[in-house]
């Protein structure tokens, strides 16, 4: 700790930090632009100028940039001195010289860091009367709007996009006052984290395009803390609503998980909530594809009757909350409950849970991931299955520069110094994967092979860590050496190839590192937002057995909660089961193929309209809160089930409140921690009110619904959660799990997040949210290596062996029904080796049809693909479910016409 004196007042600050960081952490107001806690300081904008004094006798001092000056013990500075204030006012006046008169038509207006800083420095009168410099804008794809006139050249965008996220297609062009931040030509910003530019840009150059389409000012949004449903990472988000529509998803700071950044799937993948495919009423199927709307009571009575008759099998879902899954499990009984994961997924998730418990290696949070110093990715395509992990891994590799800087005595926040001292030296990252991916550029070495060979490679690395024979392949030897010599080795693997042996191999590497006296960490990626929750709840039936049982006709009723079974097993198997069962009841939010076969459909609430709990890859249980009241008859699935069960005379599901269900969840094995995730509905904040979802300046209260009802009914009382549908109360001092938005006086933009942190860039105030359900540490035994059946590779004549390939945009069920993600994702594709493509007579851009999958796929040729194997885009049309084993015949489809790629569109627009 160091003591610094600011305007005559002493503060105890962190010595390793710069003065700007120190001042903001102490709650002092100092304007800045180019500095970002995750990006460090470069001193580009000159906005955080302060006067620094040599000693107590120095009355004159000198001007320094706070972000570029270390907070050494005894530093004396002044923020308030007239010279410093004048300097900062001049800087902002220069920055504003060319700034367009756009605020009313700018999506950033009202949450603009530039507006806030302009007000903070007191620049209220425009003196410059000259002409303003202008730029043409670019089309940047379905996610972002570009408005270059507003730029103040702080360089944050390229520092984030290129340095932090590894993008290559956003650059700085031009010279002097003509700096242009954009692409060489119009086109989609390719990086998977481009959406963060919305939050990184201090003004309105990069704005949220889908949000802009039905734009609402920040002060008018009512928001709630939520958890991203896009993958197993469980990034914390703010989800915002107005007029009954979900408007946008923003990052909610979590010190251990997502920090300041989200991936584009998470940010733009929630649009399905507003979909026209939403199921909004209770429906009964009358004839093929037609549903009659039923009265809620009638629908529940019908379901109750089915429950009363017995013989009910329930299929839950890894995309539904713990609450819904537990409700269904309680209703049908463990022996009749299936978690809803496919058999392959479920066995993998079980394997992961078993491995994580058996090993003493910790499951790393993302901040732990960033602190590792050697990484092996074994068979997992993290950029496409858990994108935020890939962004963290990029920092892991880059953080070598921080270690080197530490040795050289360069402060860690000195971004330019740190990176130029490192001279491109990186922490070693070894990637063994099926196909090249977007993070290959930072890998020390790569291996591309088919999944079983990757597993072999993993076992070989494990053996090599124990004792090197010298005859290992290069990749194995290098990876083993790097992991062995590391302080914090990290192994990343997962389920994306649906190969057990890969997860077993990852476990073996960790075990080898442990016996070599290391303290490794093991990150195993699960497929979906609540896969771990489903795995921990468990069920008596796996998917194939459940479907078999249903198809055999011994089951009267099948209840499916928020799941599309066609994505969980092969088509024939599913069709056979769903068409045999007498009563098929589906509770879902979207119209899915399963829902259209149902006899009785109940409208289920999405994550934005209900309150529930997801368990992420760290087994961290996290609560998401309903943002708005669902329209029509939409209700959380557990409520439909509990209501029907109660009507059927069951007394163990008499739940009327989400906290009742939570009690039931907490009573299940491994789940005791879920109570502590967030306060219960009775929690009142420091203002003795519930925490408000609406901002203090929420507008239109007496006019919003005046066209429907002039009488302004009382705001609905939220009895389910500690949040209220109102602006009353304080958004302050509550546990971080209850933070609905960030705003502080004078800080309207998302930069106000530091007011909700313990120190700038540290843990969230009140502790980072979420509770880990499993502690790792030698419980049970490490799963042994299963005898993997080595099957022959295929060929053009015999048919190909299919390997699942994941895509960030399109493989996930819910986000792939969000319009901007649809626009960004490609058509279903198959990846061939050049040799196979040639022998098949297929070239890039042609189509191949697959009779087994019943669909046509666009051909992609990749030299890394092994001959005899074909990568198939899973989750896309035709490959929604589990891929069939065995050799699959493919043929070129002469009638295939590629769908025009919307990304090629160039719009010359301002």
């Amino acid at each position, binding site marked *: 700790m160091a003591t610094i004196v600011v305007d005559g007042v002493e503060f105890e600050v962190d010595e390793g930090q710069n003065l700007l960081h120190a001042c903001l952490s102490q709650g002092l107001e100092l304007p800045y632009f180019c500095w970002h806690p995750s990006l460090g300081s470069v001193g580009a904008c000159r906005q955080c100028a302060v006067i620094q004094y040599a000693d107590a006798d120095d009355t004159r001092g000198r001007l320094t940039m706070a972000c570029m000056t270390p907070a050494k013990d005894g530093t004396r500075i002044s923020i308030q001195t007239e010279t410093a204030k004048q300097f900062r006012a001049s800087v902002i006046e220069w920055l504003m010289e060319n700034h367009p008169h756009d605020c009313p038509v700018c999506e950033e207006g009202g949450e603009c860091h530039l507006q806030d800083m302009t007000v903070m420095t007191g620049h209220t009168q425009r003196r410059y009367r000259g002409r303003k410099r202008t730029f043409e804008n670019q089309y940047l794809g379905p996610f972002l709007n570009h408005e270059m006139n507003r730029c103040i050249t702080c360089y944050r965008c390229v520092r984030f996009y290129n340095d932090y996220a590894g993008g290559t297609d956003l650059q700085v062009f031009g010279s002097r006052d003509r700096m242009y931040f954009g692409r060489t030509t119009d086109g989609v910003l390719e990086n998977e984290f481009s959406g963060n530019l919305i939050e990184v840009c201090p003004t309105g150059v990069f704005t949220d395009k889908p949000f802009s389409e039905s734009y609402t000012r920040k002060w008018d949004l009512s928001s709630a803390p939520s958890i991203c449903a896009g993958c197993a990472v469980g990034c914390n988000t703010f989800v915002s609503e107005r007029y009954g529509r979900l408007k946008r998803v923003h990052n909610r700071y979590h010190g251990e998980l997502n920090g300041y950044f989200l991936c584009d799937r998470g940010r733009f993948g929630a649009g399905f909530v507003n979909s026209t495919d939403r199921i909004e009423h209770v429906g009964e199927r009358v004839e093929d594809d037609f549903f009659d709307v039923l009265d809620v009571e009638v629908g529940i009575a019908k379901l109750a009757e089915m429950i009363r008759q017995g013989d009910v099998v329930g299929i839950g879902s890894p995309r539904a909350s713990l609450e819904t899954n537990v409700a269904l499990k309680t209703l049908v009984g463990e022996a009749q409950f299936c978690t809803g994961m496919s058999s392959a997924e479920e066995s993998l998730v079980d394997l992961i849970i078993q491995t994580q418990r058996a090993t003493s290696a910790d499951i790393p949070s993302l901040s732990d991931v960033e602190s590792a110093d050697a990484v092996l990715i074994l068979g997992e395509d993290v950029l496409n299955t858990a994108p935020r992990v890939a962004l963290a891994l990029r920092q892991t590799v880059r953080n070598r520069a921080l270690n080197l800087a530490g040795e050289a005595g360069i402060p860690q926040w000195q971004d330019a110094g740190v990176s130029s001292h490192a001279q491109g030296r990186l922490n070693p990252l070894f990637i063994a994967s099926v196909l090249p991916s977007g993070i290959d550029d930072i890998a020390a070495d790569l291996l591309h092979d088919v999944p079983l060979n990757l597993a072999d490679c993993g076992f070989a690395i494990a053996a090599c860590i124990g004792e090197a024979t010298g005859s290992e392949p290069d990749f194995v030897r290098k990876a083993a050496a790097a992991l062995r010599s590391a302080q914090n080795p990290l192994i990343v693997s997962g389920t994306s190839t649906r190969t057990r042996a890969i997860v077993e191999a990852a476990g073996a590497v960790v075990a080898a590192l442990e016996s070599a006296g290391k303290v490794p960490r093991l990150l195993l990626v699960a497929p979906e937002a609540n896969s771990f929750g489903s795995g921990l709840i468990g069920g008596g039936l796996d998917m194939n057995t459940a479907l078999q049982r249903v198809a055999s006709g011994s089951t009267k009723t099948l209840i499916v909660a928020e799941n599309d079974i066609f994505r969980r097993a092969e088509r024939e198997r599913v069709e056979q089961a769903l068409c045999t069962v007498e009563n098929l009841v589906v509770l879902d939010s979207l119209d899915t193929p399963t829902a259209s076969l149902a006899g009785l459909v109940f409208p289920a609430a999405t994550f934005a309209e209900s309150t529930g709990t997801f368990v992420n890859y760290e087994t961290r249980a996290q609560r998401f809160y309903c943002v708005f009241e669902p329209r029509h008859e939409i209700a959380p699935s557990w409520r439909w089930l509990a209501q029907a069960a109660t009507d059927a005379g069951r007394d163990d599901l008499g739940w009327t409140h989400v906290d009742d269900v939570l009690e039931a969840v907490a009573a299940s094995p491994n789940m005791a921690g879920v109570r502590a995730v967030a306060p219960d509905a009775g929690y009142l904040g420091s203002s003795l009110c519930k925490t408000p979802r609406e901002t203090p300046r929420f507008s239109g209260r007496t*006019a919003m619904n005046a066209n429907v009802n*002039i009488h302004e009914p009382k705001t609905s009382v939220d009895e389910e959660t500690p949040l209220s549908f109102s602006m009353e109360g304080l958004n302050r001092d509550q546990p971080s799990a209850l933070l609905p938005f960030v705003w502080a006086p004078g800080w309207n933009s998302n930069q106000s997040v530091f007011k909700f942190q313990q120190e700038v860039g540290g843990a969230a105030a009140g502790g980072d949210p979420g509770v880990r359900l499993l502690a790792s540490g030698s419980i049970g035994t490490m799963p042994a290596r299963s005898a993997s059946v080595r099957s022959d590779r295929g060929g053009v004549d015999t048919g190909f062996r299919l390997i699942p390939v994941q895509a960030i945009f399109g493989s996930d069920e819910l986000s792939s029904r969000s319009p901007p993600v649809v626009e960004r994702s490609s058509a279903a594709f198959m990846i061939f080796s050049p040799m196979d493509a040639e022998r098949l007579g297929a070239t890039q851009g042609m189509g191949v049809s697959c009779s087994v999958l019943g669909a046509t796929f666009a051909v992609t040729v990749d030299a890394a693909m092994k001959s005899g194997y074909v990568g198939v885009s899973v989750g896309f049309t035709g490959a929604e479910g589990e891929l069939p084993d065995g050799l699959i015949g493919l043929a070129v489809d002469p009638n295939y016409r590629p769908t025009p790629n919307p990304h090629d569109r160039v719009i010359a627009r301002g």
Partner: protein
Amino acid sequence: MISQLVSLWKVFLHLFASNETVQYPSKKKWWWSKPTKVMPYLAPRYRGRIILTRDPDGEERCVACNLCAVVCPVDCIALQKTEDENGRWYPEFFRINFSRCIMCGMCEEACPTYAIQLTPDFEICEYDRNNLVYEKEHLLINGVGKYPDYSFWQVAGKTIFGKNKGEAQNESPPEDVRSLLP
């Protein structure tokens, strides 16, 4: 003493001054004549019924910036932004609940485009409160109102139909970023 006398004299003179108070809504000229409707003179800046005006080019002035809604002390304005194919912002709907409006004029003050204006018309009473909810079709007039010349889009940096980058007031033509000239 003198000033008191002057004051008394001035007050006395007022006995013969014409009335400032107007008989409203109607007045009889003589005691036997029928009452006729009276509309007093109200200055243009009088704060009565709210209207939405148009730009000199005939398009809607309102850019749906929401500043009127947020400044409204009774929260009686609600709107939703949308935009045309050329990027011009306008309100998809614009609703004022006049049964809540207190005619304070803060919306007019906040409006950066002179779109929302208060007029001297104060006769907006209704028997049914529902009729006091005005939508955009009731608010929008075919004219510029009190500010004939101002056009926000001609000073803003965003492109709209008929105005490209660099064509607004006080703007230089778009920079050629590929130029290497100093």
